[in-house]
């Protein structure tokens, strides 16, 4: 039973570029949340997808967008990359029941030069 898988594991981009990160949820999960974790900080909630729609959103600009596919997998897109976007991007899946724990993937380490 595969857990949450994310790709790629590492990525290097330059300022102004665009990036797409991918996530496959744990089997049986239908809800995907994305987090940004800067060095030494806790994960910061970006948004959550359920039934292919963005259900909740954290305090992130519109440069951050996402998508969920019918198979529950998800993508995180970031446009016009800034140096401050360098971070570990974590995907977490769960069931719709908000009381259930989230299962995290290993993350994508994004570095902006």
């Amino acid at each position: 039973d595969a857990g949450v898988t994310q790709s790629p594991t590492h990525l290097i981009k330059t300022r102004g570029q665009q990036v797409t990160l991918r996530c496959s949820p744990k089997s049986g999960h239908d809800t995907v949340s994305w987090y940004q974790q800067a060095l030494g900080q806790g994960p910061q909630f970006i948004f959550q997808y359920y039934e292919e729609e963005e259900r909740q959103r954290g305090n992130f600009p519109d440069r951050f967008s996402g998508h969920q596919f019918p198979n529950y997998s998800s993508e995180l897109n970031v446009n016009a990359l800034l140096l401050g976007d360098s971070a570990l991007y974590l995907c977490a899946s769960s069931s719709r029941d908000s009381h259930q724990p989230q299962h995290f993937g290993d993350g994508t380490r994004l570095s902006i030069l």
Partner: protein
Amino acid sequence: GQQVMQIPQYQHVQEGEDFTTYCNSSTTLSNIQWYKQRPGGHPVFLIQLVKSGEVKKQKRLTFQFGEAKKNSSLHITATQTTDVGTYFCAPRGSYIPTFGRGTSLIVHP
């Protein structure tokens, strides 16, 4: 989202000493989850607390939820080097998931 404050930010202990991290909120929490993140790893779910005054144990780890459901704590008895990592509390429920800044535990052998 519900904001939580975790203290301390860092804790150095000698192997065998006890460790406690505290999670405080200004608002009443419906429930709270605890996660552990090893260096270079991702957060891993440890436990969820729901009831006022709830206490749960996992081997050397003891989790408590305050009577007013505004604070929580994690206590580790006789730390081991395998306990190294950052421990996060995270309120869960209908609100935007929020993680505290975490407490980084460093265990010296």
